[in-house]
């Protein structure tokens, strides 16, 4: 067991967890932040993606202990009250989701793509989404949403 101290969505938290506990399980089971989902056991699907110190990571591939001292942002930490993050708004407006299960991971990855590429073109978005799987949308509207979200994020700055 080890005490892990993190900042999650701007709130400091301290949790006593077993050494083998993964970050995703701390978020979902201990902190009840169930937006990040577990969709696979091979780090392929990306449904568990969160931001760790500003970078998108698959929280099923990180031990909670590795996140000690880190700043974590989950999908629940994006909206400012009633106001959605521009990328969340873009997913809604472009119909970039259907069942919604992959959506939190997609949105966290999308924001990271924009942070690294600014206003990415379609080919860049498609290549960068390689690590996030969606079975409903055929990615078509997700790609549109990421491109639209990038424009919105730039406009919001």
């Amino acid at each position, binding site marked *: 067991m080890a005490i892990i101290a993190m900042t999650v969505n701007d709130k400091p938290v301290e949790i006593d967890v077993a050494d083998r506990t993964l970050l995703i399980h701390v978020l979902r089971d201990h902190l009840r932040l169930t937006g990040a989902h577990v*969709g696979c056991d091979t780090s392929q699907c990306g449904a568990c993606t969160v931001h760790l110190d500003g970078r998108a990571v698959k929280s099923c591939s990180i031990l909670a202990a590795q996140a000690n001292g880190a700043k974590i942002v989950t999908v629940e930490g994006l909206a400012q009250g009633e106001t959605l993050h521009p990328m969340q*708004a873009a997913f809604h407006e472009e119909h970039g989701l259907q069942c919604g*299960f992959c959506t939190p991971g997609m949105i966290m990855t999308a924001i990271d793509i924009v942070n690294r590429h600014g206003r990415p073109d379609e080919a860049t*978005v498609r290549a960068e989404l390689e690590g*996030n799987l969606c079975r409903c949308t055929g*990615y078509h509207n997700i790609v549109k949403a990421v491109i639209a979200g990038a424009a919105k994020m730039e406009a919001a700055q």
Partner: protein
Amino acid sequence: MNTAMSGTKFGKSQKRVEDARLVRGKGRYVDDMILPGQAYAAFVRSPYAHARIVNIDASAANDMPGVIRIVSGQDLLDAQYPPLPNIWMLHSRDGSEIKAGIRNALATDAARYAGEPVALVVAESREQARDAAEAIAVDYDELPVVADPTRALADGAPQLHPGIANNRAFDWEIGDEAATDKAFANATHRVSITLYNNRLVPNAIEPRAINVQWEGVEERMTIYITHQNPIGMRMLFSAVFGLAAEHKLRVVAPDVGGGFGSKAPAYQEEMAVAFAAKLIDRPVKWTADRSESFLTDAHGRDHLTYAELAMDGEGRFLGLKVHTLANLGGYISFSGALIPTYMYATMLCGQYAIPAAYCRVEGVYTNTCPVDAYRGAGRPEAAYVIERIVNVAAAKLGVDQAEIRRRNFIRSFPHQTPLVYEYDSGSYEACLDAALSLADYSNYAERKAGSEAKGLIRGVGISAYVEACGIGPSALLAKLGGGGNMWESAEVRVHPVGTIEVLTGAHSHGQGHQTTFAQVVADRFGVPMENISVIQGDTDRIQAGTGTYGSRASVGMSAVLNSCDKIIAKGKLISAYLLEVDAETVEFDDGVFSSKATNRTVAFGEMAFAAHAAAAFPTSEIEPGLVATSFFDPPNFTYPAGVYVCEVEIDPQTGVVRVDSFCAADDFGVIANPMIVEGQVHGGITQGIGQALWEQAVYDPDTAQLVTASYMDYGMPRADGIPDFKLTFCETPSPSNPLGMKGCGEAGAIGSPPAVINAVCNALGIDHVDMPATPEKIWRLCQLREAS
């Protein structure tokens, strides 16, 4: 028929109301839930595809930390817990009944596919349950395996079920064999094809999950389950498994993270968990991991088919003859007998007027995961057969692939096919024209030359699919071997303040019913969308229904519409008192009751309040309150159709097939929400491209182990392999429901595999290549092509 939904909501691309919680991570999926006293289940699974279970030694596991209870198949037998049902009864050609092997919730005598659950551990935590499951020692006696249906049928093959000779569950037929033989005898041209429709893993991104609570004192059970048909599951859990009386059993399917048919069956794991929860009198949760999903979520397709087409001198189709071996897996799944028979063979004539047709299907047991409904369920397999053989015919006759289709299209409706179904409506030629125009088909040669200049091989493929949606009527389904029960229910409750709750037995797993069902009500009542709540997926609130599969939303929405109309009829009676006019003179339009006999009007909300106040009208004549329930049983299936045009570019150096363009013209009848429908088509086409190019569940022939059991090994479509799609709609209303809708959820997955493979074959100048057209397979064909 009334397709005149004339308001501002229905038929428009309304943004989805369900997004508000989903983009915030506030979805409510089964695994998100932790109940008071929560315990967790993990399964012990057979590592062998076929093995006798000799002994289960749980002594070490029993003493491990957190372990609450270990359950084996013997515990289920001791409790007289029955095996899983097969809901579709068929008769073979010789009149004998389908031969269904016994499938218990946990394997008892033997395991028949790798990963079959053998025992279950309940513990205080997920990790403890898993640790203990690993410590259970099962003594297996390995048996010979067979994964291939052709081998399984052979004499001397390993036998899966006692008393089922040659592993043949059924040998079924449909159509007129003598008439079809005669058509072949009189034909000028005959073509044939042997093809394999590859086995797929559905891969909803949310794994299967269940959380079961038993309240012993009241003998009430609550089951939270990620499922497409919670109401149907209530009946099963109660009637078949006796876990609680139906009125004391609550089944809740909250947000469901994709289904595609794979969350419609009853599964071994869910049945075992419910049993365990009652046994220990504590809530028990199980969530599949992805490996378990690959091994045990009912797979799709897996047909080996030989087909022949007879034609006259002008290429007009005279007869179609098909023989299919359907790999059922180790057991007949929930509706596993239905899919390769009435959902498949009935659609083999496609969009074509074929006077005579005959199909024989043999259902075969093998040591593989059971097969059940998967996106399209039988119709993709049918479309693939007819749309591939039509292209073989076009090549043989030297006729353009568009022209041979045009020559044979059904042109008048309703159209009785020789294979049971009567198509309701369609405009197949208009769809073909729309698709060809969208694809700029007439300038294809230029693009082909452009590819050749780059050293690439271009091909174009057309497919024209038709499918059957909105399953019903109940009596027909009962006649074909199902239990009936194909209606959908809807209750519309208007509250005193004029807000509305719509309770529907249909259930969304990504289709956006909360939005589209509200669109129907908003326009019918002339009220804002914000005033409407759509309630689904909880049997304590919705008492009757049949869920969502086979693009059944048209059935559910029709029930909603009929309930609205009952409210309006009552509203007219109440408004007549408020307006002091004869009820016959009252009209309702855009939220307002009016009568030519007076200048006064009554708004919908005023009428709703008056209905509850019950002071303005005699309650001896009109009951107070404003609630209406409808059960809609469709008079026929609906028959969506469409034409897809795909262009591929093949790199002969690598064998990689790149889908360069994909154009779709679909006839879904009247469309409730184009934005949502387009989204469903995108998803369907992507699954179809996945099937055509990458996806396949591969079993090792010697061990029957699934070798593609993770996202590392299975060719899931990813964003960078999919092109931008071009879509258009050709709308012919269906006469089978009051909204004129047809259904769109499966279309893309039905029409796209033959379009892609037709394009690949067109590019390489070959008759056929089996799916998936992987780079390795295509590279070899390119080498042959170069050599010749």
